[in-house]
């Protein structure tokens, strides 16, 4: 039966129908309101009470609501005879509640009595459920009291009525919990309360310093190179430019990553130097080995990521490697070291700095399998001790030996014995920081057994004496003049030592480092100018006696019998850090870099 077929209806009915105000909305609203009111009042039934409240509510509400409310009895009576309700509409509506509303209220009161807490949620749920119950009240009837058994309308199962029990949508009864959920209506679901969205919390303005820093041109270039890394033609022939220089430029900024390191890879490479491999993780180092199989010489600085796995790939792939130089390979364990030695019997250069794991077994294996070692550096190796040195004695072909910076100094005897065994072939020796060495080392070790040394580093040896060093150099006829001497940070050495050195090696000495010789006098320093004709690099830091005149003498020579003689004509680099008597007025010469003049310290 459609609504179209109707008898004459009142203006009100027509108005509401047009406005689309339906029974559901009204009932729901009314039910909510009823509940609210009842919460405040005592839950006692009584038609008069609700009638009063209705009236009261009506007076406080806006007219819109009032009209809705007025309609409630009318609309709920729609299934009944429309005519009757219409006539009864105006006056009585205000006082009476319809049967349905009354029944609803009673049910709610009962529920309230049965409940412990009268929460809003329940009422809201009831608000959802109530309209359906009241509207379809004819079909389902009011909800049975909580706790009683009911039969489910769908599955016919017995279930306990709880406050969450939903009326079935078909209207024939109540649903057990499962069917209610299956039907899509979740009784537990609280009506979605629209979350009050807080205005997004003001994020602290964290100034992103990285972004603010203006990218340098070097950085921009590195980014570009990385971008075009695969386009070799685009980048041009790298061989033309200095590969090492590029490697240095990239390394300076820690810019060498696995993306752009391919720039240097080439199967035909026979030597490769990476000055900073910090950003190359272990797999990238494996790739290095695979891509550069024909390497004979490899140098990796800061290769902290080099671990056993990657190093084993080195052992197997880099078959023709003859020289390996590593700075910081602390992850490699003895087994990996040993494997490397066994696979490289032709190894000629083994230079590592900083490894706490390299132990006596490694050295033994090295000596055993690589007898042809010519260059050996075990610098800052934590475990180095006399036993190591004993092993090294076996390496007859050793030219370059660097055992400096140990954690504990080796004994003097051990070093002397070592020199006795291999000293004659050595051209470079570095025993710095073996603090146990005394003058006896000079006489019994160097003097007695070395004859071919060209470069000597004996820095940080506090036991050496001025006279001792001087005497040593005076007597060291068996050895030709040194080219490079580094005796820095031995602060007791002074005039005698310097004179001895210069008399012995002065004419061939190209690099001299006497940084820290604070007591050396100006006269001795002048001798450098007289005898050090080949001097290229000179480091005289903290030699207090140094002043402008000495520098002048070095650069320009001195007037002897009317002519300028002497001077270090070939000087390229002069370091005068900590020499406060050298002022900015000191003479300069084209081609000579003077570093460390204090008046120029800051910019």
């Amino acid at each position, binding site marked *: 039966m459609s609504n179209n077929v109707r008898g004459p209806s009142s203006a009100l009915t027509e108005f509401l129908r047009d406005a689309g105000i339906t029974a559901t909305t009204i009932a729901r609203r009314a039910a909510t309101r009823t509940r609210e009111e009842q919460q405040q009042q005592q839950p006692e039934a009584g038609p008069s009470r609700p009638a009063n409240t209705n009236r009261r509510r009506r007076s406080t509400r806006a007219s819109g609501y009032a009209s809705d409310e007025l309609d409630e009895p009318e609309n709920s009576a729609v299934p009944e005879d429309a005519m009757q309700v219409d006539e009864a509409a105006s006056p009585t509506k205000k006082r009476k509640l319809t049967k349905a509303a009354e029944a609803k209220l009673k049910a709610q009161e009962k529920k309230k009595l049965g409940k412990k807490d009268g929460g809003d949620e329940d009422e809201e749920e009831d608000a959802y459920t109530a309209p359906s119950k009241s509207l379809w009240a004819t079909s389902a009837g009011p909800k049975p009291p909580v706790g009683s058994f009911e039969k489910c309308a769908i599955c016919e199962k017995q279930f306990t009525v709880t406050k969450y029990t939903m009326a079935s949508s078909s209207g024939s009864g109540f649903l057990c919990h499962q069917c209610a959920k299956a039907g899509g209506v979740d009784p537990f679901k609280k009506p979605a309360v629209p979350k009050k969205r807080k205005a997004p919390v003001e994020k602290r303005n964290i100034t992103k310093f990285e972004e603010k820093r203006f990218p340098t041109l*070097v950085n*921009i*270039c590195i980014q*570009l*190179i990385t971008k075009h890394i695969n386009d070799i033609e*685009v*980048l*041009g022939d790298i061989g033309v*430019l200095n590969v090492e220089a590029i490697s240095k*430029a990239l390394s300076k900024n820690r810019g060498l990553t696995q993306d752009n390191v391919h720039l240097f890879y080439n199967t035909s490479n026979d030597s490769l130097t990476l000055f900073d491999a910090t950003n190359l993780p272990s797999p990238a180092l494996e790739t290095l080995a695979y891509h550069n199989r024909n390497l004979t010489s490899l140098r990796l600085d800061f290769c902290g990521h080099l671990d056993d796995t990657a190093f084993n790939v080195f052992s197997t792939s880099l078959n023709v490697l003859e020289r390996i130089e590593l700075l910081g390979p602390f992850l490699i364990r003895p087994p990996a070291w040993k494997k490397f030695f066994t696979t490289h019997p032709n190894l000629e250069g083994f230079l590592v700095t900083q490894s706490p794991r390299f132990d006596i077994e490694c050295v033994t294996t090295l000596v055993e399998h690589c007898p042809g070692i010519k260059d050996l550096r075990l610098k800052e190796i934590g475990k180095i001790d006399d036993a190591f040195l004993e092993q090294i004695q076996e390496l007859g072909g050793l030219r370059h030996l660097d055992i400096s910076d140990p954690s504990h100094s080796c004994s003097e005897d051990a070093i002397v014995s070592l020199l006795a065994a291999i000293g004659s072939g050595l051209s470079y020796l570095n025993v710095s920081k073996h603090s146990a060495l005394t003058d006896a080392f000079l006489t019994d070790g160097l003097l007695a057994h070395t004859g071919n040394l060209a470069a000597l580093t004996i820095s940080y040896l506090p036991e050496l004496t001025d006279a001792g060093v001087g005497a040593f150099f005076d007597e060291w006829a068996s050895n030709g003049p040194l080219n490079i001497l580094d005796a820095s940070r031995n602060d007791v050495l002074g005039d005698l030592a310097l004179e001895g050195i210069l008399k012995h090696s002065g004419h061939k000495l190209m690099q001299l480092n006497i940084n820290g010789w604070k007591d050396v006098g100006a006269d001795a320093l002048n001798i450098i100018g007289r005898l050090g004709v080949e001097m290229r690099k000179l480091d005289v830091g903290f030699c207090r006696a140094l002043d402008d005149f000495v520098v002048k003498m070095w650069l320009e020579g001195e007037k002897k019998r009317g002519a300028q003689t002497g001077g270090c004509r070939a000087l390229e680099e002069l370091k005068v850090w900590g020499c406060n008597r050298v002022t900015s007025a000191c003479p300069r010469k084209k081609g000579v870099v003077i570093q460390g003049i204090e008046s120029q310290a800051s910019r």
Partner: protein
Amino acid sequence: MERNGKATSDSKESQWVRLQSTDGFSYLVKRKVAEASGTVRNMLDSEAGGYSEALTGVCEITERGIIVEKLVEYMSFKTYYETVNTKDDVPVKEFMERIPPEIVLELLLAADYQEM
């Protein structure tokens, strides 16, 4: 030093400096722009160093003309965006697009030397 007396009267003239390349190209730039490069700044510094470039205002850059041109371009780019205190992003990507990849390796070495 006698140079100090000259400096004030020269200050107008020395506002511009010349950067010369090896193949004969010359670039006149403002002193402030040229000092975006650390090396050039040291060359032009009249107090410390006492280099001839400080007097003449001419710096010889040992690079080809194309490279010097890109260096100058970067210097201008940098000086401009450092002074303009804008909250907009610096168009670095745009600048990157203007560098042809063929020269980027040379440019890297040059930039490294010039400390920029």
